[in-house]
């Protein structure tokens, strides 16, 4: 201390800084030599560690609905009844997906063994798998298990041949419409996008509604979902099969983007739609200010519950999304929803597997469908009469065409950002359609092929 005290100010500063940085580098060099047993656990069909029928599990899940009873606690009690020796401890995660993910990344990359199982977004498998933040699940389940799910869902949870998440419940985009207004104007439910655009603009011009068609155009992940739906309906794709190039600067991409912009310029959608996320668009529709809405499956129960607030109870119809003329019908709906993942550091992977297997079994999926109106991921449950009778959204789930977001690459976050920032800029009129698409393409290509900010 005395030596340090005696040194001159500046050199002392340098010395302390040098010691600190060296210490940190040494510490990390040491820690990086220890390899995690979970990371080297190969997918060769070996049995998971721990006991399959007893133990404590911590389940990290954000709230699924806002009404009581809470589906998470209902499912946990049913599970504990089936497996009395496994106790599940629920940890409520932040509702914002990004905050949720950041929290998980901090926890798991710090090596924590808890939570054991976490409910995560469907777009996380590639990112989490690439960074070792989720345990590969392929070896723990037989292939018959994976094929029980609706098509496309397991593929969305796969990265480099390994499945990282078990589809828990699913979500898609639907078209909600005011059937009373359509009846009044003798309009049929639109099945093509241009038809919807003219119907919406007409209703606005007649003064029957303030907004014609509302959707999610804010600069965030939801815009990528919306854009993928138009792109898929136009027959296009976002990435090539090798995931090395963006393919959205194509005739299909141009058609989709042009249409989105024309929605605003024709008056069918308000210019404010560039700031709408789910909450704002839902509220606009439910308070009777919009005639058409594109939203997830919760739009039905929200609009039919007067206390949401909603003034359109009994006036709402739902259908699959429209398509473009000359393309396959109906239009494509983007896949959303949540999977169940296992923390690679979990101390009781066998019990986690039991938990996941039960949560994705017909018993649990039926509870989700019939009691909580969530779209089940297991195909047989989706198509069961009980679930289909629950509400009009569940009834038409089988009639939709699905399109996933291009989340198979670990760089998906940057890919999505390239899409939604440029499309949002185009919607606001700050960039041209071709300019936005080529900017998005070059940004996606650089994200896929090199690293950058």
């Amino acid at each position, binding site marked *: 201390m005395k030596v340090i*005290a005696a*040194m*001159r*100010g*500046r050199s*002392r*500063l340098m010395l*302390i800084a040098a010691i600190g940085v060296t210490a940190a580098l040494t510490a990390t060099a040491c820690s990086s030599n220890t390899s995690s047993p979970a990371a080297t656990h190969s997918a060769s069909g070996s049995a998971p560690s721990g006991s399959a029928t007893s133990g404590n599990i911590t389940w*990290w899940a*954000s*709230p*699924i*609905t*806002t009404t*009581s009873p809470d589906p998470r606690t209902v499912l946990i009690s049913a599970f504990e009844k089936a497996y009395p020796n496994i106790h599940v401890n629920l*940890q*409520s*995660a*932040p*509702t*914002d*997906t990004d*905050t949720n993910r*950041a*929290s998980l990344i*901090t*926890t798991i*990359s*710090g*090596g*924590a063994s808890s939570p054991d199982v976490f409910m995560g977004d469907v777009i996380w498998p590639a990112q989490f798998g690439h960074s070792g933040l989720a345990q590969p699940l392929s070896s723990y389940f037989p292939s018959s298990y994976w094929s029980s799910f609706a098509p496309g869902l397991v593929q969305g949870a796969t990265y480099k041949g390994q499945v990282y998440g078990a589809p828990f419940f699913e979500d898609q985009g639907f078209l909600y419409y005011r059937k009373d207004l359509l009846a009044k104007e003798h309009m049929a439910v639109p099945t093509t996008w241009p038809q919807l655009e003219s119907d919406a603009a007409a209703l606005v011009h007649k003064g029957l509604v303030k907004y014609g068609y509302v959707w999610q155009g804010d600069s965030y992940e939801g815009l990528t979902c919306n854009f993928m739906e138009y792109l898929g309906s136009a027959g296009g794709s976002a990435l090539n099969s090798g995931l090395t190039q963006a393919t959205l600067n194509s005739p299909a991409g141009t058609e989709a983007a042009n249409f989105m912009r024309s929605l605003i310029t024709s008056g069918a959608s308000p210019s404010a739609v560039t700031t709408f*996320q*789910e*909450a704002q668009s*839902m*509220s606009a529709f439910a*308070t009777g*200010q919009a005639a058409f809405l594109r939203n*997830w499956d*919760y739009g039905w129960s*929200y609009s039919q519950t*007067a*206390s*949401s*607030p909603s003034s359109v109870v009994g006036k709402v119809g739902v259908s699959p999304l429209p398509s473009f003329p000359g393309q396959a019908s109906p239009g494509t709906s983007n896949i959303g929803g949540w999977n169940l993942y296992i923390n690679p550091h979990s101390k009781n992977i066998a019990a986690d597997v039991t938990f996941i297997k039960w949560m994705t079994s017909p018993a649990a999926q039926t509870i989700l469908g019939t009691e909580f109106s969530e779209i089940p991921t297991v195909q047989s449950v989706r198509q069961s009469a009980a679930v289909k009778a629950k509400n009009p959204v569940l009834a038409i789930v089988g009639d939709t065409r699905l399109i996933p977001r291009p989340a198979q690459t670990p760089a998906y976050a940057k890919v999505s950002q390239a899409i939604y920032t440029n499309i949002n800029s185009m919607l606001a009129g700050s960039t041209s359609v071709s300019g936005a698409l080529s900017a998005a393409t070059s940004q996606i290509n650089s994200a896929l092929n090199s690293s950058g900010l």
Partner: protein
Amino acid sequence: MRNRSRHGWRRVVNGVNLAALLVFIFIALPLYWMVASAFKTPANVGASPPQAFPHPLSVSNFTVAFSQNTFGRYIINSVIVAVVATVLVLVLGSLAGYALGRLPMRGRFTVLVILLMISVFPVIAVVVPLYALLRDIGWLNSYQALIIPYTAFYLPFAIWILRNYFMAIPHEMEESARIDGANALRTIWSIILPQAWPGLFTAGIFTFTACWTEFLMALSFNVSNDYRTIPVGVALFGSQFTVPYGTLFAASVVAVVPIAILVFIFRRSVVSGLTAGAVKG
């Protein structure tokens, strides 16, 4: 009691008063909006056009916040963490601020600059290594997981503030105390601190508020529901696609009450400190 005449000031005061009145309105209106919205029924919170005054008045937002979202637990946690951290900061900060401000330490400017550098470092960058450190010690999901980092990160600012106010105190008082035989701690306690009361108040209120509202570290270190603080608890309101503004504002109204109480408690002390300063020759 101030009997000074203010002839020269009167004109200026009026202009300043008017400007301050405008600022006051600017501050009060959004506050009113938040409180009013907290008392609207959940349906009317999203009403368009918005209601200027809640009608009917409803406390359902408050009941939802406390029952469905265990908000009371979060309040208790926040209070514990903030109070302990503030006390620690004031005690340690006073000692260090006195030393760095009034004692002839060589290299104190270096220390102050290092402290500055530390308080400046973006929390985002240090959250991950700090998490790993806390995990290795086994302090995750506890009160000390937040109290210790908060104390460490908010001490530099407190030291700077306290030092600034300590330095303004004339040295003669200290000299006379020393001649009377008082040691350093006594000097600090009976001479320095009473003089720098406003500085203590400022440092204290800053630290308390910073602890009360800190988000990133609280989110990362205390994930268990038993130890969550208010900012993190609030992040759990609603569901993925809804922002329950009514419940949020109700929670905010409740969260603000302790601060208001604190200021009221300290108000008299600050006033007495001010008058003592006026009387001092």
